[in-house]
């Protein structure tokens, strides 16, 4: 028999105490993991969305910034327009290297249930495009032909032959992009030509026509010259081109970042409250348990256990409980995040992407360690105190 076994026997023989300690560890671990997973997932998703957009500055009509972010991040349908001639004006701004227009369209809201989902559609100009091409090319080296679309991760074809019915016209889904956790996952990408063709045929085929105002675009992607100060270029755009609002990529998704920050604060505050309470609770339970077991521990000393052994076995007991509790807590947290991610995305208004297995494993390890360290810390003082006491006194209880 070794002291691990002894600790285990003691745990299973002392129900209530063990449950309290394990449960505290469970709550701490579950909460810590849930919080960090959520925050990390949201942050990764935001970065990924910004990166996928691939522009240094996104120029939208003045007042449409929130709508644009809602479309890109959450997939909320959006529609806003500005004159196409802004392209030339922007290209003339010093520090701008390239510009490319995009048109944002939304599918019919309230489409029949259990058919294709609500989609956010992005039409781009293949001639000037520099933002979509790099990652479109991964999926589709040849580029998109007319009538062909590329979908985000959630998009799936419902008609035969990879067809998707959009405004009464069936387009062919040629590939899907990797998930970002943001609205881009339910977006459909196609060329301007496809968009115009859809608009024309929608008058005949669709219940409601698709209207693309002539000589209008939704947004303009701007690439700055290497070495240029993006912020300065943005200010210059604001000054020289009327009616538009430039969003530097670093400032993109400001509202989501703010949301994320308040989420982080909430998690930090909750942890700051929860953690000491858990440690104090576990410490108290251990002090009580150690006092309750004074005679037993004194007796073990008489049978030849060293002070070190006593302290070690108490700490082992605590750590085992912490490990079990934390493992369950982490399981529950990961399960909850994984299953309820859509609900979380919808209700918190931040995008979310489940982290890669590697980073998930790392966070689980950190969560386990945190819970074990808390319990260890909480049990350390009682363990040392009890191990130091005079066995003769301890046995007299």
């Amino acid at each position, binding site marked *: 028999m070794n002291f691990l076994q002894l600790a285990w026997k003691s745990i299973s023989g002392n129900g209530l105490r063990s449950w309290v300690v394990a449960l505290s560890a469970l709550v701490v671990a579950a909460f810590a993991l849930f919080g960090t997973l959520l925050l990390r997932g949201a942050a990764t998703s935001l970065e990924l969305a910004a990166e996928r957009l691939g522009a240094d500055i996104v120029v939208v009509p003045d007042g449409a910034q929130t709508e644009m972010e809602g479309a890109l991040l959450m997939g909320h349908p959006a529609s806003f327009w500005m004159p196409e001639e802004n392209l030339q004006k922007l290209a003339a701004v010093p520090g701008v290297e390239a510009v490319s227009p995009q048109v944002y369209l939304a599918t019919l809201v309230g489409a029949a*249930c259990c058919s*294709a989902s609500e989609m956010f559609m992005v039409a781009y100009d293949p001639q000037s495009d520099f933002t979509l091409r790099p990652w479109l090319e991964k999926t589709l080296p040849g580029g998109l032909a007319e009538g062909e679309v590329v979908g985000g991760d959630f998009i799936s074809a419902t008609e035969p032959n990879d067809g998707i019915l959009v405004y009464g016209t069936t387009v062919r889904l040629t590939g899907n992009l990797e998930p970002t956790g943001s609205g881009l996952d339910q977006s459909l990408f196609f060329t301007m030509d496809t968009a115009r063709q859809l608009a024309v045929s929608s008058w005949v085929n669709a219940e409601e026509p698709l209207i693309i105002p002539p000589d209008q675009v939704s947004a303009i992607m701007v690439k700055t010259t290497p070495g240029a100060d993006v912020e300065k270029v943005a200010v210059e755009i604001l000054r020289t081109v009327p009616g538009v609002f430039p969003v530097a990529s670093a400032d993109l998704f400001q509202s989501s970042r703010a949301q994320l920050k308040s989420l982080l604060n909430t998690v930090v505050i909750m942890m700051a409250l929860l953690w000491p309470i858990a440690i104090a609770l576990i410490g108290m339970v251990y002090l009580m348990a150690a006092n309750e077991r004074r005679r037993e521990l004194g007796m073990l000393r008489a049978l030849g256990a060293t002070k070190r052994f006593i302290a070690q076995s108490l700490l082992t007991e605590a750590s085992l409980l912490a490990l079990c509790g934390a493992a369950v807590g982490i*399981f529950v947290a990961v399960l909850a995040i994984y*299953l309820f991610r*859509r*609900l979380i995305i*919808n209700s918190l208004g931040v995008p979310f992407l489940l982290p890669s297995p590697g980073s998930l494993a790392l966070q689980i390890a950190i969560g386990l360690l945190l819970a074990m360290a808390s319990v260890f810390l909480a049990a350390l003082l009682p363990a040392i105190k009890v191990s130091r006491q005079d066995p003769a006194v301890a046995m007299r209880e």
Partner: protein
Amino acid sequence: MNKVMGGLMVLFALVLAIAPAFTDCQSHGKMLTTADGRSIAMKCHWAGIAEIAAAVPLGLAGIYAMFGRRKDTLRFAGIVGASSALMGILLPTILIGTCANPSMICNVLMRPTLLASGILALVSSAALIMTAREPQFAPAGVAA
């Protein structure tokens, strides 16, 4: 241990049985409209109804686990609980499934709730079976 596990099984059984009534598409006023204009319930609704068939044996097994004393009673309760929990997981995923649209309420709320309860009930049942094992204590050197 068996009391806690049994309690959890009853709890998850209640969730399995009750949650669909509030989280399927029908409860949020969405029905399928057929070509001739009639409204019929969608399959997420039927998956939710079918969950009751998984929840009843799970809950009963949980009650048995809470009040049972004999090891084989507990083990039996664990096995019944585990198989009904598995049923609870399979119904909204493979056997019946939910609506196709991933952003619909049944997929956002009902399916995850059912899966979470099912998985946790499965784990509780497994823990119950583990604790109700026969003590396999064969001290070495005593046999002789």
